[in-house]
């Protein structure tokens, strides 16, 4: 008997089929906002290098409604990015002491601890 395997196509809306797929896509989308924000900082540095007036104009532009909406969205996606990647970190960094495999909790906590220390360091430098 001849075979006739049938291949079902994946629908374009596959990422809406399950909540976990949608969360994954939100994590993927978060990199767009992280990238855009990084670009914004580079533009800010460039404007700073051009002089006081140019940098002042850049800061004024940041006050526009469009910019505020972008910053709010970037903050939400930065949090999604951070929390989701930190929660996945133990998979890449398994801990085993002797025969015993440890839970991933300490790895996740260590990531948050480093995040807080680095953020505090940046704030400290910004105040100087």
């Amino acid at each position, binding site marked *: *008997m001849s*075979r*006739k*395997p*049938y*291949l*079902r196509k*994946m629908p374009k809306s*596959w*990422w809406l*089929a*399950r909540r*976990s*797929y949608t969360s*994954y896509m939100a994590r*993927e989308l978060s990199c767009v906002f992280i990238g855009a924000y990084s670009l914004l900082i580079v533009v800010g540095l460039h404007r700073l290098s051009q002089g006081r007036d140019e940098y002042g104009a850049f800061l004024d532009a940041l006050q526009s409604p469009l910019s505020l909406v972008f910053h709010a969205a970037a903050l939400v996606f930065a949090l999604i990015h951070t929390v989701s990647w930190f929660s*996945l970190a133990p*998979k*890449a960094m*398994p801990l*085993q002491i*002797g*025969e*015993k*495999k440890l839970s991933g909790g300490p790895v996740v906590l260590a990531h948050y601890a480093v995040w807080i220390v680095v953020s505090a360091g940046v704030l400290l430098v910004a105040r100087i």
Partner: protein
Amino acid sequence: MTEQTLQVEILRYRPETDQDPAFQTYTVPYRDDWVVLDALNHIKDNIDRTLSYRWSCHMAVCGSCGMMINGEPKLSCHAFLRDYYPNKVRVEPLANFPIERDLVAVTDDFMEKLESVKPYVIPQQERAVDEGPHLQTPAQLNAFKQYTMCINCLLCYAACPQYGLTPDFVGPAALALAHRYNLDTRDAGREQRQEIAASNEGVWDCTFVGECSQACPKSVDPAAAIQQTKIASTIDWYKALLNPWGKR
């Protein structure tokens, strides 16, 4: 008292007559200790003997009866009807694989990929029987033991959208088994496996959706194996870059 019943919707595909698969609904008796596989066996034995599906052990060991049950990849011997009753149960063949017939998926692609990662111990030197066994400490065993639990049921492939979108992707189970042998202290075959595992179609096609580990009925955690292989491969790359004359 009338007997409690449950409706089971099954995706049928008979290649000799059907152009496309279509759902067919059966009514089966409801028993709270029945799993979906019991319902399929009831249909096959009493209602429609043309129904095709794979199964063997009925105890989540053989890995034969993986199916999509209400859209989730599950072993049909591990999915109780009581978790769905009184709603109907929709049964489809494993997603991301071609359908051979009814609930039987074509798994040739996985078999070839599994073979390509050499999922067996490749010793540094052949060892004569009278030299005794390879000794391994419990700690060395525990480093890879979870990955030995894989039963090749392919639920991880059905859960992985990346495999559905990029069929060349070697996929979760094969890469987890490659990692299992790479971690084994008796093995010296990592370099041979890396040709496949560290290629674009290997670990780098994985975008860490993580659903493979959620779907796994044996807690193998293929997503962890793949991320660890990515890190080890990256270290290899940097070592080769910094010391091109060194041994890889």
